């Protein structure tokens, strides 16, 4: 089992979700996060005072999938989230030791 964490531009969330649904991925967890990489922040002005805002809002998607599907899913996410501009985000793949479904106690492959 692997966990895929994808950090993407917020307005790309629907595209990524639809692409994952097409692959039969039945659930996901998202959170609103802030961060920065190569993309620069922006300037805000309040009553004449300028503030440089470094941390930019992003969406983090977390899904856990069988290891053999990872490459396909990563490609799908990349295609869906890509705008060819800096700031499109990152995808991380991590190993997962064990998965348990709370209601039934099913484990691993049966539980995702």
């Amino acid at each position, binding site marked *: 089992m692997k966990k895929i964490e994808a950090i993407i531009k917020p307005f790309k969330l629907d595209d990524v979700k639809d692409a994952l649904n097409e692959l039969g991925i039945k659930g996901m967890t998202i959170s609103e996060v802030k961060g920065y990489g190569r993309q620069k922040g922006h300037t805000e002005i309040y*009553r*004449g005072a300028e*503030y440089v805002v470094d941390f930019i809002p992003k969406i983090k998607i977390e899904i856990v999938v069988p290891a053999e599907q990872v490459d396909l899913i990563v490609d799908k996410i990349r295609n869906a989230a890509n705008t060819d501009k800096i700031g499109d985000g990152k995808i991380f793949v991590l190993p997962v030791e064990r998965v348990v479904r709370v209601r039934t106690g099913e484990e691993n492959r049966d539980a995702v």
Partner: protein
Amino acid sequence: MELNTGDTAFMLIATALVMLMTPGLALFYGGLVRSKNVLSTTMQSFLCLGIVSILWVVYGYSLSFGPDVGSVIGNLDFAFLQNVSWEKGTGRTIPDMLFCAFQLMFAIITPALITGAFAERMKFPAYLLFTSLWVSLVYFPVCHWVWGGGWLAQMGALDFAGGTVIHLNSGVAALVCAIVIGKRKGWGKEAMHPHNVPMTVLGAGILWFGWFGFNAGSALSAGPIAALALMTTQLATGAGALTWVFAEWKIQGKPTTLGAASGAVAGLVAITPACGYVTPACAIAIGGVAGVLCYLGVIMKGKLGYDDALDVVAVHGLGGLWGALATGIFASVGGTGLLYGNPKQLLIQAIGAGAAIAYSAVVTFIILKVIDATVGLRVDSDGEQQGLDLVEHSEVGYSI
């Protein structure tokens, strides 16, 4: 005088309108601070409705509008509202009690305006003491000078709805507060931008709405001067919103919503002393100049290095000063100013403004020093970091 039901009905409504300005100010200020201080800032405006109401009844109205003592203060004939009738109007067509209630709303919002200068760092007990002492020692006397038959009234100073008494007075006090209490922790290094601009714009809208009661109501009768004051108020405010936005657009490259809201308040402040004395065309000029002037004042703050957190000095102090002088320049209804052949009026206005500045600055300074030496003005550094909502009030504005 015989009571007039039309005037009385109008003034009942005007009084309620002015009351609404203080919660409006609470929203205006609340949106401008960081979210960890939204409640303490709201509280500092809102609670003036309680503190000042009580003081007003006990001795405030009497000191402000009681029979004159030496042209500087009223006596205690009206303490606890004795001799203040709800059945008679003394020299007015509305009950004395209603005039007292109308004036109370002015006394409430004035110390609330100052709270913007020390927002995000003053202890709650210090705020309670400051508000009580400041209205007692600064507001009541200055109000008496201008409106209660004191020396500025005798000299012929024009202040239709409180440019000097309310805005210049609170603006100067705000400057002293900002300097004495010191900068907020991290000022100039950390971002301290407003946490809720829509809330501030809503507050500005409520202020604008309530200000019709403030300015038109200051005519004290439902007549032609109230109509004039209402129209000049609208025009100056619209002009102020526009010129602030254009000024910042020109200087900093972007027209901002907060600029529009701030410019509207600047226009309101500036037209306040003039609203019943000037023509609509002059009102546009007064409000238009105020928008640019107050914006420049805000920019100057950074260069001068004092942390007037919510820009009370630039908007109310500078706007109030401009309004007081502008009244001496543009007055043509019920008084004449410089442009209408009476340069002396401008001088009288300047003397009035100068007296308010000097008196307010000195007494505010003494009040702050006394509070600092007794209960202390400022929360400690950790408390400031955590936010006043939590450390002073044990609550938070937003929970998810």
